[in-house]
């Protein structure tokens, strides 16, 4: 009896956190501005729903969802992290929709005069900032790119890993690394860095951002329309404005 009262208390606590009318979306750090803007836009036409975004490295978000965080939608920066949740039975395979694509760039401090033009040049740096190549999508992409060029072994010792891609960007902004590998969209939001070069599409792994409705979504009823809104034309405009490439729905649903 005592235990039951206890668990009721905890359950009601959780219920208090996930309020009715609130849709929680866990989104990759690189989506911070875009999702915030789309959320605001959506709320303007759906005043009954409050969109609460949570931003972090996709891997960290996936771990939170696995641990039972009350999340309705998950917007990952890579397919691998999403597949992990599908495998764990937290997301239905058919609920996953690839929505966006992005590209990698190498950024340096705005006032930097380092001559960096290619992956080979990165090996000459003192310190290169990337997202954690062990799990954070941006870091995994960066590692895959460098490994494909046969440079990972050489560059790995000079890398400093950040918890997410914005962390990697911040290290260069603060002047504590010579360069960082981030998404094109991250480079665009910072006044303190400039793009040294774009990672050629031919060398880069393909970058896909899938979004999905979680199986255990506390507010699936209200999350669903927002999930569809994210795939709609209004959202696409915002994504494009922020530098993302929108994957046309026709190419993903044959």
């Amino acid at each position, binding site marked *: 009896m005592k235990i039951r009262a206890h668990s009721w208390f905890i359950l009601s606590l959780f219920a208090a956190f996930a309020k009715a009318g609130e849709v929680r979306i866990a989104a990759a750090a690189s989506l911070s501005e875009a999702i915030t803007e789309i959320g605001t836009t959506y709320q303007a036409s759906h005043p009954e729903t409050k969109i609460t975004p949570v931003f972090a*490295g996709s*891997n*960290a978000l996936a*771990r939170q969802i696995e641990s039972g965080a009350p999340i309705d939608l998950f917007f990952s920066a890579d397919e691998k992290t999403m597949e*992990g949740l599908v495998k764990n039975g937290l997301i239905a395979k058919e609920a996953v929709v690839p929505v966006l694509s992005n590209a990698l760039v190498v950024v340096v401090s705005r006032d930097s005069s380092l001559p960096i033009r290619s992956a080979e040049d990165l090996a000459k740096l*003192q*310190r290169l900032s990337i997202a*954690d190549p*062990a*799990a954070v999508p941006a870091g995994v992409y960066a590692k895959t790119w460098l490994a494909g060029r046969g440079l990972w072994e050489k560059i790995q010792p000079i*890398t*400093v*890993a*950040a*918890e997410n891609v914005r962390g990697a960007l911040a*290290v260069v902004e*603060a*002047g*504590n*690394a010579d360069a960082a590998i981030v998404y094109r969209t991250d480079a665009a939001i910072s006044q303190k860095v400039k793009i040294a070069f774009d990672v050629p599409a031919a060398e880069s792994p393909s970058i896909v951002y899938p979004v999905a409705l979680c199986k255990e979504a506390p507010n699936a009823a209200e999350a669903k329309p927002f999930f569809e809104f994210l795939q709609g034309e209004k959202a696409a405009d915002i994504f494009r404005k922020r530098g993302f490439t929108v994957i046309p729905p026709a190419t993903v649903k044959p």
Partner: protein
Amino acid sequence: MTPADGQLILFTLSTAAMAVLVSFPVGIAVAWALARKRWPGKALVETLLTLPLVMPPVATGLILLKLFGRRGPVGGWLHQTFGLEVIFTPKAVVLALAVMSFPLLVRSLRTAFEEIPRDLEEAAATLGKSPRQVFFRVSLPLARRGIAAGIILAFARALGEFGATVMVAGLIPGVTETLPLAIYRSFQTGDDSRAWLLAGVSAGIAFLAVAISGWFGRGKRWL
């Protein structure tokens, strides 16, 4: 447990030891001054010294990062004058651990000094010993148990430090990663079994440290 894990544990133990080692002489001086002397600004220094104990460690880390970063006032100077890099190197880890464990060290040392009966120090002085001699031959030996307990407590605190370290050390496996950072990172990368293993190791070390510290506190004969 892999060789990398062993190295990680060794690295954590040695950076914590290093941190206590570098802060110990300063700690002794400050603790002595706080326990036995009256001077202007003492209250302010006491408050400042307690800050890292109660401030969010991440905030302390932020301050250290800004100060010692390549563009920070201290870090920039070190970089230009000596070509020294602090941030994202093992030096940064020692720095963070030293700053975070310093208040605990000073508190313990101060208590150790305060517990010495003043009469004994005064007696030595009236018998013609200089203040220096009184300190080294009366106060220090009498306070040894408290000092040992304080060192171990500060060491244990340094072993567990996360917030300030994560700011200044970066997540560089094999270079700046300490046990708490590795636990966090293992969890984030989905390696739960390693996270548990390292958490267990940390708990074991902490248990030993606290037990030894308590043992000194109770005053065993051999020390």
